[in-house]
C-alpha cells in the first residue's frame, strides 16, 4: 500500500465523509483513516427490522455486557440490542473525569462513525448565530457569516436529502427541502394555538436528513421507525451510504479502517504537517502516512486529542496551539429538559407508521436584542411531538378489563424537549491526562466541563415557556424535568479548536485552516466558535465542503 497521498482525511463520520467526497471529486488522491472497524451497508445492520423477541433480554438489554463494556453508551437514548455493534466499547477506551463534572462521551467505533446513529435533525445557522459572540461579548467573533456558508448549505442539502417545510424565518433560513413529513392533528392544533397566542413563535415539522422521496438511487423512508439500527434502502443520510460511496466512485479514495491516529509530525522548516502516525488496531503495527493536505475530522474530542498529543519542540502546547485555546471553550447543547402533558380529545384519530422525526419550535428568545424578561443570553429551540399512549402507560388493576384498556389507543400526549445554546466558557475544557494512557499508549483525555449559570437559567425558562405553551393548547397533567445537565449528553460537543480572525485567540482561520500549519484543516465540531441552539451536523457538512474545495483550490494554485 502506498503511504503518500494528496490528502489524508482523519475520521469518516459526518465531516470526514464530506471531506473525502469533495477532495476526491477535486481529483485529489485521498486516504481516509478511521479508528473503528469496517462495516458494510446492509450486511452489518444486524438489528434492522429485528423485533424484540429475537433478543434474549428484549428491550431490557444485556445488562451484564452493557454495564461492563457500554456503561456510557448504553445510557444514551437509542442505544439498544439492535444497534450495539455500532457503539464504542467504554471499557477499552477509557477517559478521565472528576465526579463533580461528568462528561458523557458518546462515540461510534465503526466506518461512518456517528453518522450511522445521529439524530438527523438538520437546521441552517443564521447570522443570529454567527454574530452572537460579537453581539453579547461571550467568546470571540466568528470569521465567517451566513453569506459565506449559504451556497454550501444548498449544495450539501441537495446531496444529503433534507425533508422540511420552508417557513421564511430570517433566524432559521430555509433550505433545499424535499417534501415535509406531515404533522398529526394534535401537533396542528398545538401549532395553531402557539402561533395565535404567542406572536413570534412558530411550530413546524422537523427538518430531517431522511428521504421523503427517492434520491440518487436511495429509497424513500418506509417509516419503520428506528433509523439508527441501519437502513437498507439508505433513506437517512450517513457517510457509509452517501458520501463515502461518492468518494469511491471517483476512484481516488483509499479507506483504511482500524487505524487510530496517534499524532501528527510537522517539518520545523516549512511548518507543515508531514507524517500522520497511525496505530493499526488489529496488528498493533505503527505506521506513517504522508499527505500534502491533512483534514482532521475525527470528531471534536478526537481531533483535539490528536492536536494536543502532537506536542513537539516547536509546538510545546500541542500542534496549532500557539494561542493556548486548544481544548478550551467546549460547548454542547443543553439536553434532556422536557415538558409534556396529556392532550384531551382527538380520540377518533390515530397514526399509522413510525415517523422518524418530530416537531420543531425555532428559537424565539432574545431575537431582537435582549428580552427584558430573560435572565440569560442566547436561546433555545424545542423538539418534540404528539402521539397516542400505548402499552407503556399506567393503568389500574389487572385482568381482562386492564388488558382491553392497554390494547386500545390511549390518550394523546404532547412532549417538548429543549435544546439550549451553551456559551463558550474558557474553563470548560479537555486536556490530556499526564499519567493515564490507553491501550495504544496514547494519553487519555481528561474533561473539566459543566453547565454554568446562563445554561441553568435558560433551562428554567425552557420549562416555563414550554409549560405555558402546552397549557394554552389545553394540555392537562403537565409535567416537566430539567434533565441531567451533563455535558456531552446532547452529543453536540464542539468548540475546542475554534475558528477566529486572530491567531492569538483562535486555532483556525476563516477557511478552517490552522493559523500556524498551512496544510492542516480541521472541519468537525471542534472548529465552532459558538454553539447556536440548533443541531450542528448540517453545518459541519457545509463547512467541510467549503474548506475542502478551498484547500483543493490552493493545491491547484500551487500554494499548498
Amino acid at each position: 500500500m502506498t503511504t503518500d497521498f494528496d490528502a489524508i482525511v482523519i475520521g469518516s463520520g459526518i465531516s470526514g465523509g464530506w471531506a473525502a467526497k469533495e477532495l476526491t471529486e477535486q481529483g485529489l488522491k485521498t486516504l481516509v483513516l478511521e479508528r473503528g472497524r469496517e462495516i458494510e451497508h446492509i450486511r452489518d445492520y444486524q438489528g434492522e427490522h429485528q423485533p424484540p423477541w429475537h433478543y434474549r433480554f428484549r428491550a431490557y438489554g444485556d445488562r451484564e455486557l452493557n454495564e461492563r463494556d457500554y456503561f456510557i453508551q448504553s445510557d444514551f437514548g437509542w442505544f439498544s440490542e439492535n444497534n450495539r455493534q455500532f457503539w464504542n466499547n467504554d471499557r477499552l477506551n477509557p477517559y478521565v473525569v472528576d465526579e463533580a463534572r461528568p462528561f458523557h462521551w458518546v462515540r461510534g467505533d465503526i466506518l461512518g462513525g456517528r453518522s450511522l446513529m445521529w439524530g438527523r435533525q438538520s437546521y441552517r445557522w443564521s447570522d443570529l448565530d454567527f454574530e452572537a459572540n460579537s453581539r453579547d461579548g461571550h467568546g470571540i467573533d466568528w470569521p465567517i457569516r451566513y453569506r459565506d456558508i449559504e451556497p454550501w448549505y444548498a449544495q450539501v442539502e441537495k446531496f444529503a436529502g433534507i425533508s422540511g417545510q420552508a417557513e421564511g424565518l430570517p433566524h432559521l433560513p430555509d433550505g433545499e427541502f424535499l417534501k415535509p413529513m406531515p404533522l398529526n392533528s394534535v401537533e396542528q392544533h398545538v401549532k395553531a394555538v402557539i402561533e395565535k397566542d404567542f406572536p413570534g413563535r412558530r411550530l413546524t415539522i422537523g427538518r430531517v436528513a431522511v428521504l421523503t422521496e427517492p434520491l440518487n438511487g436511495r429509497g424513500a423512508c418506509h417509516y419503520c421507525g428506528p433509523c439508527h439500527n441501519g437502513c437498507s434502502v439508505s433513506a437517512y443520510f450517513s457517510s457509509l451510504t452517501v458520501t463515502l460511496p461518492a468518494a469511491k466512485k471517483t476512484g481516488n479514495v483509499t479507506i483504511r479502517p482500524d487505524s487510530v491516529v496517534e499524532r501528527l509530525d510537522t517539518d520545523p522548516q516549512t511548518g507543515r504537517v508531514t507524517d500522520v502516525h497511525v496505530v493499526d488496531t488489529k496488528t498493533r503495527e505503527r505506521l506513517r502516512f504522508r499527505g500534502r493536505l491533512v483534514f482532521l475530522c475525527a470528531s471534536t474530542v478526537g481531533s483535539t486529542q490528536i492536536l494536543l498529543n502532537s506536542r513537539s519542540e516547536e509546538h510545546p502546547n500541542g500542534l496549532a496551539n500557539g494561542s493556548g485555546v486548544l481544548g478550551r471553550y467546549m460547548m454542547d447543547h443543553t439536553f434532556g429538559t422536557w415538558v409534556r402533558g396529556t392532550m384531551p380529545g382527538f380520540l377518533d384519530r390515530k397514526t399509522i407508521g413510525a415517523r422518524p422525526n418530530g416537531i420543531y419550535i425555532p428559537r424565539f428568545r432574545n431575537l431582537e436584542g435582549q428580552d427584558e424578561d430573560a435572565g440569560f443570553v442566547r436561546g433555545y429551540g424545542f423538539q418534540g411531538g404528539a402521539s397516542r399512549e400505548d402499552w407503556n402507560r399506567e393503568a389500574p388493576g389487572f385482568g381482562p378489563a386492564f388488558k382491553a384498556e392497554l390494547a386500545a389507543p390511549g390518550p394523546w400526549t404532547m412532549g417538548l424537549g429543549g435544546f439550549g445554546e451553551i456559551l463558550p466558557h474558557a474553563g470548560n475544557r479537555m486536556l490530556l491526562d499526564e499519567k493515564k494512557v490507553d491501550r495504544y499508549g496514547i494519553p487519555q483525555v481528561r474533561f473539566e466541563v459543566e453547565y454554568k449559570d446562563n445554561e441553568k437559567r435558560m433551562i428554567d425558562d425552557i420549562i416555563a415557556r414550554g409549560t405555558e405553551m402546552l397549557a394554552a393548547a389545553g394540555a392537562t397533567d403537565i409535567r416537566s424535568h430539567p434533565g441531567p445537565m451533563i455535558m456531552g449528553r446532547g452529543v453536540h460537543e464542539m468548540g475546542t479548536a475554534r475558528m477566529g480572525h486572530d491567531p492569538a485567540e483562535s486555532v483556525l482561520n476563516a477557511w478552517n485552516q490552522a493559523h500556524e500549519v498551512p496544510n492542516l484543516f480541521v472541519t468537525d465540531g471542534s472548529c465552532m466558535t459558538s454553539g447556536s441552539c440548533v443541531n450542528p451536523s448540517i453545518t459541519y457538512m457545509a463547512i467541510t465542503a467549503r474548506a475542502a474545495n478551498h484547500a483543493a483550490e490552493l493545491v491547484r494554485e500551487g500554494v499548498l
Partner: protein
Amino acid sequence: MLNRRDLLRAAIGSSAGLAFAGLHRACLAAVDLDAAPANRVLDDAEREILTAIADLILPATDTPGALDAGVPQFVELILSDWHTSAERQPVLDGLAALDADCRARWGTGFAGCTLAAQTEALAATEDSEMFGMVKTLVVNGYITSEAGATSQAGYNPMPGVYREVVFDAASGRWA
C-alpha cells in the same frame, strides 16, 4: 397474515433488504433465546405463583394471554439473570407474603386457590412493590413477545407510510 418477509417486500418493493433478512436472523440465533436462566432463583412453588399471577394480569381473551406468550418464562429470566439479588428481593418477599395470606384465609397456597380467591388476594397486593414490579415485567414481556405484539390491532412493523387515520363509528373501522 403476511409474514415478515412479505411485509418487507410490500413496503419497500426492493430485494436489497430481503436478501439479508434471513442472514440477520441466523446471526442472532447463535444465542438460544429460550434457554433457562443461568441463575436459578425461583423454586417450583414460586414459579407456580408467578405463572398464576401472569395469567391473572393478562388472561387469554380475544387475543393471546400471558401464558400463550411465554411471559412467565421471560419474567423469570429477568428476575434471575437481569435483576440483582437486592432488586429481586421485594418480589420474592411479596410472593411469600401473598402465599402466606392465602394459607391463612383459605388453608391453601396461592396456586391452589380458586380463581375468585386468587383475584381477591392479588388485588390486596396492588400497592405493593412486588405487584408493581411483576405487573411491569408481565406487561413488558407480553408486548415484546411475538404472540403479544403481533396480535395487537395496530401491529404493523413495515408501514411504508406515516399518516393519520380517523375512526368511523358507523363501520367501527379506522380509515
